[in-house]
């Protein structure tokens, strides 16, 4: 089987399951008695095992297989959860993650797992012997061959694979019932496929069909006689199902039987030989249901049903966006024509179209939005490990994980956040003893807070640690020769904190394993700025440090200022612009041949776009004023000389493609309302 086409799906799903395992493991650490969590972990591990075996990643499959065995022992209460076991499970998950990432990079996903496999094996074996916890008699029958399923010998068992059995037992536990349904159509039935469809349709209103015999494809092609079988999960009872199905014409008979699957100690001694009983509904079904429902109510979290969704390749969305921006251009033309003609009906329908396409635009943009939860999810685990390494106690609070961000930003924001969080734990939070002395709670708190405000997303990382020491930072900066003591004294606190973002700047006295990796906060800043974002710092010594990241909602549509130089139009991102101004030419000064202006007390160098871009000009302009756009890069500024400001406009960002990489001072292009291409100026390249 050629499995390459499934590789993307496999990678995505494995990542999701590993993330789920990580989260569940952390929860389990808090509540080691909660077997439900173990079951969740088991299911994820089981899925990964199945998928990786199918895809031919043997090492992954064998490691998950052993993991599964250990988990199986735990969920059957033959094994007690101990910190050592948790650590080994965590390690296994790390290795699995590493394998996935190596597969993403194109390798075969092989890794030496024998050591871990041995450890897992010995846990599974060794602990079985010493386990003294009461083991229910049925459980002893189930062996450690992972999902030991004790089942009755009913005919429908061959319809189910291990995974489906697991689903059934799980849904039984959460108050759902599983039924085996046999539907017989009348001999005269002409459109069998249509009847099948009606049966499926009726059932889907009640619950979920997890298997059919023959398979759905054959049913659609009418490749069956008069009869077909289904496995169905629902909250309703068998009578309801039967009644509903019998209402469909040309259905001759319906037989509904409860499916019994028992795992380990949950074996239910209820007799299950009812399928011999003909069309009578299963009366006993309602009793266990009530019992199960009670159980469900007691469970801490019910799995949300999850809205239906499909995965869409981000490239397809990009294509959609491209097509749509074409439409927006045509809309602009239509609007103009309608205005010129003044035909009221035309104007009206064009206005209507504009509104609809506006809504469409929002919809398309929204499709690219993903909750930041995806990024935040990996932090609990990271903080667990870090706090162990550094002997610090850390509590993580996450607020606003549902805040949505453009997919492209989500992919990029993870690393800077990891860096800031490491920084907070390592440099910000004090050791427990120190905190106690100061009268603070023993465990430090790291707060991750995401929220929308206007057209921006804010992400804050706040720790209640020691705060930033202005004098210490200044001392270091002076020592490094970044500034003089006199200059330092004039800086505001904000400006002093921002010194931390200078390259090679570190206030750590001792280089620790965590933050002494040779990368400083300067990397964070450049990454954020590459995303057209900004970082702010607030702090109070002895109390807290707050890093605030401000990001645009999306990178594909930006606010820009359109300008004209000679006959050419350029777009300048609004995020780089401080101000637009008109200066008399006599206010230009020369500093060593470099023209500068005095802008609110700052000496700002002037950059002639005409010269930088070698823009041809038919005739020399003869004004005694010039238009200047003052732009910034960090703290530095420059004034770009242009001919005209056309105005502020939302533009759709497009790249210049692989043929024209790295064009100096051009970060991309956009298509204007008249269909022409305008280049986007990269101000960072123009400021030195």
């Amino acid at each position, binding site marked *: 089987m050629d499995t390459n086409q499934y590789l993307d799906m496999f990678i995505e799903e494995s990542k999701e399951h590993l993330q789920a395992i990580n989260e569940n493991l952390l929860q389990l650490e808090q509540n080691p008695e909660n077997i439900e969590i173990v079951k969740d972990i088991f299911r994820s591990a089981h899925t990964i095992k199945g998928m990786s075996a199918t895809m031919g990643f043997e090492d992954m499959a064998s490691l998950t297989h052993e993991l599964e065995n250990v988990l199986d022992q735990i969920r059957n209460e033959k094994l007690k959860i101990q910190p050592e076991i948790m650590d080994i499970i965590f390690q296994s998950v790390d290795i699995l993650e590493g394998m996935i990432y190596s597969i993403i990079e194109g390798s075969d996903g092989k890794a030496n797992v024998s050591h871990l496999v041995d450890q897992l094996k010995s846990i599974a074996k060794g602990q079985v012997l010493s386990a003294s916890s009461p083991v229910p008699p049925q459980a002893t029958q189930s062996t450690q061959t992972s999902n030991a399923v004790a089942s009755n010998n009913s005919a429908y068992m061959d319809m189910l694979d291990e995974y489906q059995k697991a689903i059934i037992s799980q849904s039984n536990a959460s108050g759902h019932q599983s039924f085996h349904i046999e539907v017989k159509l009348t001999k005269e039935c002409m459109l069998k496929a249509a009847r099948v469809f009606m049966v499926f349709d009726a059932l889907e209103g009640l619950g979920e069909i997890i298997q059919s015999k023959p398979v759905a494809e054959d049913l659609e092609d009418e490749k069956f006689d008069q009869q077909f079988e289904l496995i169905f999960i629902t909250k309703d009872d068998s009578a309801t199902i039967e009644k509903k199905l019998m209402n469909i014409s040309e259905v001759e008979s319906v037989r509904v039987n409860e499916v019994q699957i028992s795992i380990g100690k949950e074996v239910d001694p209820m007799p299950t030989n009812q399928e011999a009983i003909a069309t009578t509904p299963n009366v006993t079904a309602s009793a266990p249901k009530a019992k199960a429902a009670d159980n469900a109510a007691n469970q801490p979290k019910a799995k949300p049903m999850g809205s239906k969704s499909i995965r869409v390749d981000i490239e397809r969305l990009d294509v959609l966006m491209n*097509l749509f*921006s074409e439409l927006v251009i045509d809309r602009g033309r239509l609007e103009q024509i309608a205005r010129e003609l003044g035909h009221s009906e035309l104007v009206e329908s064009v206005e209507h179209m504009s509104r609809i396409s506006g809504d469409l635009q929002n919809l398309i943009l929204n499709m690219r939005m993903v909750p930041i939860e995806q990024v935040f999810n990996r932090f609990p685990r990271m903080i667990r490990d870090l706090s162990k390494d550094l002997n610090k106690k850390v509590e993580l609070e996450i607020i606003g994980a549902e805040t949505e961000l453009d997919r492209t930003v989500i992919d990029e924001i993870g690393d800077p956040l990891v860096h800031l969080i490491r920084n907070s734990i390592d440099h910000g939070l004090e050791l427990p003893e120190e905190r106690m002395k100061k009268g603070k709670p023993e465990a430090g708190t790291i707060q991750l807070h995401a929220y929308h405000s206007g057209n921006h997303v804010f992400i804050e990382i706040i720790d209640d640690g020691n705060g930033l020491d202005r004098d210490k930072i200044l001392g270091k900066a002076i020592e490094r020769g970044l500034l003089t003591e006199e200059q330092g004294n004039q800086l505001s606190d904000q400006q002093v904190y921002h010194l931390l973002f200078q390259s090679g700047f570190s206030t750590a006295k001792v280089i620790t394993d965590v933050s002494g990796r040779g990368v400083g906060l300067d990397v964070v800043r450049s990454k954020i700025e590459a995303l057209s974002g900004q970082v702010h710092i607030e702090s109070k010594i002895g109390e807290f440090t707050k890093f605030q990241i401000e990001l645009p909602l999306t990178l594909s549509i930006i606010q820009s200022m359109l300008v004209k130089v000679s006959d050419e139009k350029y777009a300048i991102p609004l995020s780089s612009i401080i101000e637009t101004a008109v200066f008399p030419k006599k206010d230009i000064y020369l500093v060593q041949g470099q023209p500068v202006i005095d802008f609110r007390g700052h000496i700002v160098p002037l950059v002639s776009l005409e010269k930088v*871009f070698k823009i041809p000009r038919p005739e020399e302009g003869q004004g005694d004023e010039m238009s200047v756009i003052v732009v910034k890069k960090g703290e530095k500024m420059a004034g770009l000389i242009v001919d005209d400001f056309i105005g502020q406009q939302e533009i759709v960002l*497009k*790249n210049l*493609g692989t*043929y*024209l990489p790295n064009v100096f001072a051009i970060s991309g292009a956009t298509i204007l309302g008249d269909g022409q*291409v305008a*280049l986007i100026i990269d101000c960072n390249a123009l400021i030195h």
Partner: protein
Amino acid sequence: MKVIIFRLKNEEYGVEIDQVRSIERLSHITRIPNTADFVKGVINLRGIVTPIIDLRKRFHIDHVEDNDQTRVIIISVKDVEIGLIVDAANEVIEIQESKIEPPPKVIDSVEAEYIRGVIKVENRLLILLHLHKVLTIQEN
């Protein structure tokens, strides 16, 4: 194999038809500053920003004013879509691959390395191009 014939000044060239996406009339080209002189700029090709190369400049052929015969051939090589400005393009012919001859040592103005071969069709001489070599941005 089928080739699309285009003209540069008074020479006729051929590109394989399956490398050609479309043939467009000349529309507004946005100049890209500080790139090679044969990079004419970019156009908006149905929503995709597409680079345009002036083949005349690329091959150091004398400048010819654009006129209503001037076309942009959009080609696609290794997932890169690029437009080539040519003096005219209006013919598709079938050629036999076996009749392609290696490029002569010296050919008028065009560097031989861009040429895959020449072929005689009736009394015309067609020059077949190595498109991916033409597209390498570094000019030797």
